[in-house]
């Protein structure tokens, strides 16, 4: 039986599983799902994967600056989660738990890779910001300017803008006060805004009329 067939068998059970999961009062749906995942319910496992994989990938891609590395890291996160089935442990905040694993793995990778390479020394072809097809110069600069922020500020913006979490959700996820998150996010956004404003002034180009990647030789 191939993994695809296994997946088809699982998808057939997903609807049934979705109907049967009803979060009991006082418990989050995630906690309910995670408990069933640990008990061996594969349909719930797939639901968890579909719910969080995209966000985890976005997080890793922006923190690591490489889609391939992000893919590997995301797989590693899921493997670690599956390993919990043999050694279960209580997890009250699943999103926070997953993003903590992602954060640690990304930090480890950055540490091992020694990503202290100046942005200017990276070749255009290997530039981590070349992810939007047909993007303008200014857009690429804006995207790359995110790397100029510190790790914590960048992480906050990635969770907020890319992963779509509200600031209060991020506060719960990172286990810090909402006020602290609000202040940090505001400061990070202001810093990025100034970088972008300066870039726009220096290039003197309107982003919409800039030379696109496709027009380049």
């Amino acid at each position, binding site marked *: *039986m*191939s*993994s*695809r067939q*296994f*997946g088809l*068998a*699982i998808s057939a*059970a997903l609807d*049934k*599983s979705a109907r049967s999961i009803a979060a009991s009062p006082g418990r989050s749906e995630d906690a309910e799902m995670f408990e*069933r995942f640990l*008990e*061996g*319910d*594969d*349909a719930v*496992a*797939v639901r968890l*994967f579909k719910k969080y*994989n*995209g966000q985890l*990938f*976005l997080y890793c*891609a922006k923190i690591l600056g490489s*889609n391939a590395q992000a*893919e590997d890291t*995301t*797989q590693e996160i*899921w*493997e670690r989660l*599956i*390993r919990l*089935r*043999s050694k279960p442990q209580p997890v009250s905040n699943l999103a926070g738990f997953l993003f903590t694993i992602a954060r640690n793995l990304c930090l480890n990778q950055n540490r091992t890779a020694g990503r202290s390479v100046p942005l200017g020394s990276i070749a255009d072809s290997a530039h981590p910001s070349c*992810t*939007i*097809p047909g*993007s303008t110069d*200014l*857009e690429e600069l*804006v*995207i790359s300017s*995110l790397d100029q922020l510190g790790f914590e500020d960048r992480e906050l*913006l990635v969770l907020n*803008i*890319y992963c779509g979490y509200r600031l209060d959700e991020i506060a719960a996820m990172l286990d810090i006060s909402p006020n602290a998150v609000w202040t940090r996010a*505001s400061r990070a*956004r*202001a810093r*990025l*805004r*100034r970088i*972008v*404003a300066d870039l*726009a*002034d220096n290039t003197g180009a309107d*982003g919409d009329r800039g030379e696109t990647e496709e027009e380049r030789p």
Partner: protein
Amino acid sequence: MSSTRYDRIIDRYINGQMKPAEEEDFRKLLELDDELRRLFEADQRMSATLLKERGALASLDHPESYSRFLMGLAASVPSGGELSGTASPGSVAATSASSMAPLLAGGLGLVLAVTISFFWLSDTMVKAPTAQHGDTTGAHGTTHTPPLVIEPPLPAPMPGAETTDTIAPANAANGGDTPAVPNARETRPARETVTEPLLPSAEPARPKARSERRRDDIPTFVDDTIRTRLKVERSDR
């Protein structure tokens, strides 16, 4: 106006914390204050670009991650447990078996080798005592290997259904009123029908073919075992 104040105003506007009147004032201020307009436009451009990149990244599929995730799930299923509503352990085992064909083949070969070794050893063990008694199948030509009727071991008696071996004498003792329970074992030749000559044959034994020797030797061992077991069973009864 200080840069911090610009940032605060822009944040409040972006996060929808302004009242309608304040929003109107903010729009008027944008036309008048160049620095505020510059920062606000930079913020808008930044948001649009980051969201555009987010859309591009989110549209990527991750089929390899998904298939690896499913494989991990399949491998993580406990062997005795039953999955709730998805796949049975059998299907998971089948998934694993397809990827473990070389390992299974190796295991099968090992089992085969062990089986062959067992038969070879048992062959050797049987030959050794018979050689001491002169009842050998060796090259001396004094072979006397009895023709054997090989019977499978008798199954355990059904509760309430005794064999004719024990009922028949009882009936005879009771005057034969109770008919013997028909049993398939009645039709089977008795144990004594195993023809094993007690004395060596007077005829000079012809040398046996190798395959014939092997076929004869092994059942001797098996038959002795069964006979011993039968004796024990009967004495127990």
